[in-house]
């Protein structure tokens, strides 16, 4: 079996969740690598959208900004931010991939501050388009490294909505019905959400990882999905496309 890194496995696992013909709003880094890999393997008609205005590019290389010229290279359209996010708001974006400094059991994300808001210990960038994508897209996926400082019971600041505080909370708050968190892909596992409680649960652990390890790297109690499987390792084909075409200079996979 081919050798691979945890980041490479994360990207491959995320790429497989995107079906051909779907629409996905992505940022830079691992989410973009996942979308590019999907486009070069099983999903050549994947419609990639960038919030700055790039619609359905044929990405020639890894963008460094969601607004750089790569994000509309051979695209169907170079438009503006409102146009892209309005398409999300009217229900045309199937998926989005997000990151964040902290995530809680309901998939809410913090990318604003650590510490008190008025005089923060760390000021992070803020929502950017994350709150918009997570409010509007049908299925929100998060890609992040898993450790107990990131996966916390309570966020310092809720920048971006997951299931808020449980079943029905998104709809009660006024967010579009039927949208919300879908998967969390980490370096240890793929997690989903228990439909009864809207809390995160483990769906598959990566090869060589135990549930106990995943729990030890999570700051809240995790449950198991009814059937916990082992994440399929990257295939030789996925790895060679990822390394030779998607990220030959190792901007993402070298981290």
């Amino acid at each position: 079996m081919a050798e691979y890194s945890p980041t490479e496995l994360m990207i491959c696992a995320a790429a497989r969740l995107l079906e051909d013909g779907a629409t996905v709003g992505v940022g830079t880094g691992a989410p973009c690598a996942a979308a590019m890999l999907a486009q070069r393997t099983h999903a050549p008609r994947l419609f990639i959208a960038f919030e700055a205005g790039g619609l359905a590019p044929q990405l020639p290389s890894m963008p460094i900004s969601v607004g750089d010229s790569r994000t509309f290279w051979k695209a169907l359209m170079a438009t503006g931010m409102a146009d892209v996010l309005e398409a999300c708001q009217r229900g045309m974006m199937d998926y989005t991939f997000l990151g964040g400094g902290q995530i809680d059991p309901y998939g809410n994300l913090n990318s604003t501050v650590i510490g008190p808001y008025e005089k923060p210990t760390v000021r992070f960038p803020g929502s950017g388009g994350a709150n918009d994508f997570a409010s509007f897209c049908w299925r929100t996926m998060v890609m992040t490294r898993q450790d107990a400082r990131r996966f916390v019971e309570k966020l310092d600041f809720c920048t971006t909505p997951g299931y808020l505080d449980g079943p029905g909370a998104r709809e009660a708050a006024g967010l579009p019905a039927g949208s919300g968190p879908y998967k969390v892909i980490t370096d240890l596992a793929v997690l989903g959400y228990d439909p009864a409680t809207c809390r995160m649960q483990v769906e598959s652990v990566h090869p060589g990882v135990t549930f106990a390890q995943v729990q030890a790297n999570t700051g809240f109690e995790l449950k198991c999905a009814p059937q916990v499987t082992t994440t399929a390792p990257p295939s030789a084909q996925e790895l060679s496309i990822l390394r030779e075409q998607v990220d030959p200079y190792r901007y993402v996979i070298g981290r």
Partner: protein
Amino acid sequence: MTELPAGTGPLFTDPDPDAARAFFRAKSRALKDKVMPVREAVARFVHDGDYLASGGFGSNRIATAALHEILRQRRRELGFAGHTATHDFQILAAGNLDGGRLLARVDVAYIVGLEARGLSPQARRVMESGDVQVCEWTNFALACRLQAAAAGIPFLPARNMLGTDTFARSGAKEIRCPFTGKKLVALPALYPDVAVIHVHEADCFGNCRIYGISVADRELARASKRVIVTTERLVSNDEIRRTPHATAIPAFCVDAVCVVPHGSYPGNMPGAYFSDERHLREWLNAERDESELRRFLARIIYGVSDFDEYLEVCGGAARLEELRDLELNPGQPRTA
């Protein structure tokens, strides 16, 4: 009737459409030659205490020359629309070094970070000091606020931000839809005092063309009371009239046209040159230490008289040629 929730964040600008109409009524529509140096444009149209907005997307198609000039002219107490603000925010945050207060109020959608390049230490120091007033929004929220202003209405309804601390720390208010009864967020119109926008082509009157994504600049140019355009190239008015559908910003929005080739450097300019990742890395490294940052700024901004000198300090024509090659051949390593 129960009171609907409202954010507790401050509004830095007046959303009143009639106040805006009174301003725009008096704004000149004349097709007059507005070409002038960046120094003059900033001196005339950017004032202490103004609310500023910067076009493009942080490190892409940004009006770097105008931003540097705002530092050189030591503007103070500015409000700022932190809309996808990355390198542009980093430049302005440098104006808060040594007790200066260039930035006093910031509407935040995205600040402090430079996307995949990491966080700016200087921008973090400024925003973690507690000395700058902040209000939280999102990228879409600020785009909608500019759209509302451009449309001359006091707010636009949307369905983002609901249920989050982003809403709680914003200046938005929840409303009920009069048709469906659904909860909506009301995003107040944002009329910046002045915007700086870099474009590919403009004529001397300020009719502008943008090749590639417009981000929020169509709305921004219409929403802003004053607009400084920097342009890669000056084209004739005949050329503009030949393809009027290509005009992104009409002249009657624009107050100054400054011809600045390579004006988005070190940012990317679609179709023309890629971002200078080496230079952006140098910025981030210099920011780690305040005295190092002081030396760096003296070399690239305060110690040069204009943008051309800055380009020379950064490698001049040879470097710009490399960045052009990188932009047109995207398969190469971008730090080349």
